[in-house]
């Protein structure tokens, strides 16, 4: 196990390793936030708002006088877990449908493709606005919206990949052997799509992080006092002119998370070994 991990890391390019580093870092923060955050997320720790670095508050305080470091850790938790969950959900649904469409072909393919076109053509933020207005904001809804928004995109890519694979001889061999759709999809086609799908999932992950931050700009994000990284940037935006850590820290967090994820994805692409 460790040796596989080691060889995996070794096979990465330098920028891939940087990406892996960022992603691992934020993943760890996300997982352990409840344990390592020095304060609770809503605690008013200081009378001064937007205070700078201090021993007690490493990243200062936010616009209400709460500890930025703690909020950042919780924010990372929400962002990473939500986006990861949504990305996995989107890719799972999109890819399953795509495999089904590609292998069955014919009218099933046509109908699914049209439905996906329909979904992809709706502007996601406005759709989110309507859905939140309709159902109220909740983590589940956010997750659903984010996943829903990116299912069609994944479907398109997965379908194209599957189409190319299905034309290959080894699928013909399986067919000639008499294998069923499920076996072909699951055992013959899917394993060969894993890399591009992972890359796609990484890309969706980045997009979802950004979508979530856009949604929090519109006031549709995670419920207070909890916050995702985008909400943290947004709620502290009045500190921007003072260069408050409260806004810089979450902005950097988003940037390192998304850039890191992208670098990692790039390194994972077939061209980049691994």
């Amino acid at each position, binding site marked *: 196990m460790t040796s596989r991990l080691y060889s995996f890391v070794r096979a990465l390019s330098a920028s891939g390793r940087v990406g892996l580093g960022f992603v691992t870092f934020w993943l760890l923060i996300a997982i352990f936030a409840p344990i390592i955050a020095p304060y609770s997320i*809503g*605690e*008013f720790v200081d*009378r001064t*708002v937007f205070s700078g670095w201090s021993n007690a508050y490493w990243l200062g305080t936010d*616009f*209400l*006088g709460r500890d930025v470091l703690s909020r950042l850790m919780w924010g990372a938790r929400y962002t990473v877990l939500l986006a990861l969950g949504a990305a996995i959900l989107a890719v799972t649904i999109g890819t399953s449908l795509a495999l089904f469409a590609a292998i069955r072909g014919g009218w099933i393919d046509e109908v699914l493709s049209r439905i996906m076109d329909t979904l992809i053509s709706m502007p996601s933020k406005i759709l989110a*606005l309507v859905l*939140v*207005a309709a159902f*109220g*904001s909740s983590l589940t809804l956010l997750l659903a919206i984010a996943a829903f928004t990116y299912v069609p995109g994944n479907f398109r890519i997965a379908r194209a990949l599957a189409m190319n694979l299905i034309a290959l001889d080894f699928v013909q061999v399986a067919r000639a052997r008499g294998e069923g759709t499920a076996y072909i999809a699951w055992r013959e086609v899917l394993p060969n799509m894993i890399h591009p799908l992972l890359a796609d999932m990484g890309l969706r992950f980045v997009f979802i992080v950004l979508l979530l931050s856009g949604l929090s700009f*519109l*006031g*549709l994000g995670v*419920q*207070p*006092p909890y916050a995702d990284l985008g909400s943290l940037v947004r709620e502290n*935006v*009045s500190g*921007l*002119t003072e260069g408050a850590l409260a806004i810089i820290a979450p902005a950097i967090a988003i940037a390192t998370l998304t850039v890191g994820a992208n670098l990692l994805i790039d390194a994972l692409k077939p061209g980049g070994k691994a």
Partner: protein
Amino acid sequence: SGAPKEVPRRGGLVRVAGHASSTSDTLDPAKGATTLDYVRHHMLYSGLTCFEDDSLVPSLSLARAIETDDRITWHIDLQRGVQFHDGSELTAQDVVHSLLRHKDPELGSKVAFVAEQFAEVRSEGRFGVVIRLTGANADLPNLLAVSHMLIVKAGQQKPDGTGSGPFRLEEFNPAVRTILVRNGEYWIPDRPKLDRVELIAIPDEVSRVNALLSGDVHMINAVNPRSVRRIHADPNYRTMITPSSLFTNLIMRQDSLPTGNPDFVQAVKLMLDRPLINRAIFSDYAVIANDQPIAPFQPYYNANVPQTLLDTDKARWHVQRSGLTGVRLPVYCSTAATGSVDMASILQEYGSRVGLNFAVNRMPADGYWSTHWMRHPMTFGNTNPRPTADLLFSMFFASNADSNESGWKNERFDRLLVEARAGGDETLRAEMYGEMQQMIHDQCGVAIPVFLSFIDGYDRRLKGLRSVPLGAFGGYRFAEYAWWDE
């Protein structure tokens, strides 16, 4: 301060940014719903009375005189020689039309409930108007000063901006902009000073402040208290901070549980850290309130009601008595109710200290008022200043009021409200209003932590502004007096 008194000059092109606009922006005063609507209406039309300063006592405007003996029948004498923008003369007919149209259910006037008090409105000669009310109301001149009561041209069912106000309409594009130019024939001499005013809306606060600081607009409203420091950092910009009776309150419905539990209500009032709310959310630009809606600087304020202070021990005791320890309590808030989201965060935090488990539900501003406000046991409300205590009480606290936010019912309160409305002896009236404040403070299911201030930001060169505690932009009437000092 030793500077010589400056002489107002004529001229100036000013762009003003409000905080909201929509496709339902209107030229009809009866339907005004946003700050910019009110500003626009006050610029286009004149009213019978108006508020000119922070005294909250109405002055005469189109009415030269208002007289009454019984506070039921009122005689109004109109100014002579007032012209509408199209040149026609303003007469009693126009006033009768303007007042009576609010009673038309088709119109959907925002002050229909006030107009219900008009038993009769008729002209008396070319410039005399008689208003007979259904019951005595000493506050009629105050009521006539609001923008909805502005005078439009007789016969106009859909007013098109032709009024007798200080500005003429040049362009009106709902949700985009309104351009108004000086009315050279304004019936008050030497007014207005500004040549041209453009009204736009910038809903995003940060953008609004940025627009001011980059010189793209010259006046803005609804400045976040946290942005005041930013504006002051630049010597070219000022703020006008008008303490007001505007408040954001936590509503606890008395007709549902657990909010109907008096111990719970008491606990919540006791665990509000009002100084923290004032400091953290409003940068100390608010005024600590006492769970009743009359602000210290308003007429009839009862200073004898003891101030509720933060007392977590007592609050915890109440919580235990109510048996609600650990119960999950959803609270609905929204940016639609200024500051409520942050207040909810604070509530949640302090709640956890006294054993209450609040779950914050931030709702989109869109649809908040129609779908959430008052519809759940615990929601936040936001109440704008009203020109009279009577109006405030009858709209939000009377048992039968539509917007009786907490569903509070008190017979004595209702009786006092009608008695006080009739007026007569001012000391008696003050006593009655005082008792009503105490009742709300003690028993009503609303917690009012602070009174907010209107904070307008403006370009240093914009002069002659007056603050009126009834609304932003100098009680919506800044354009009447403002001038531009190049």
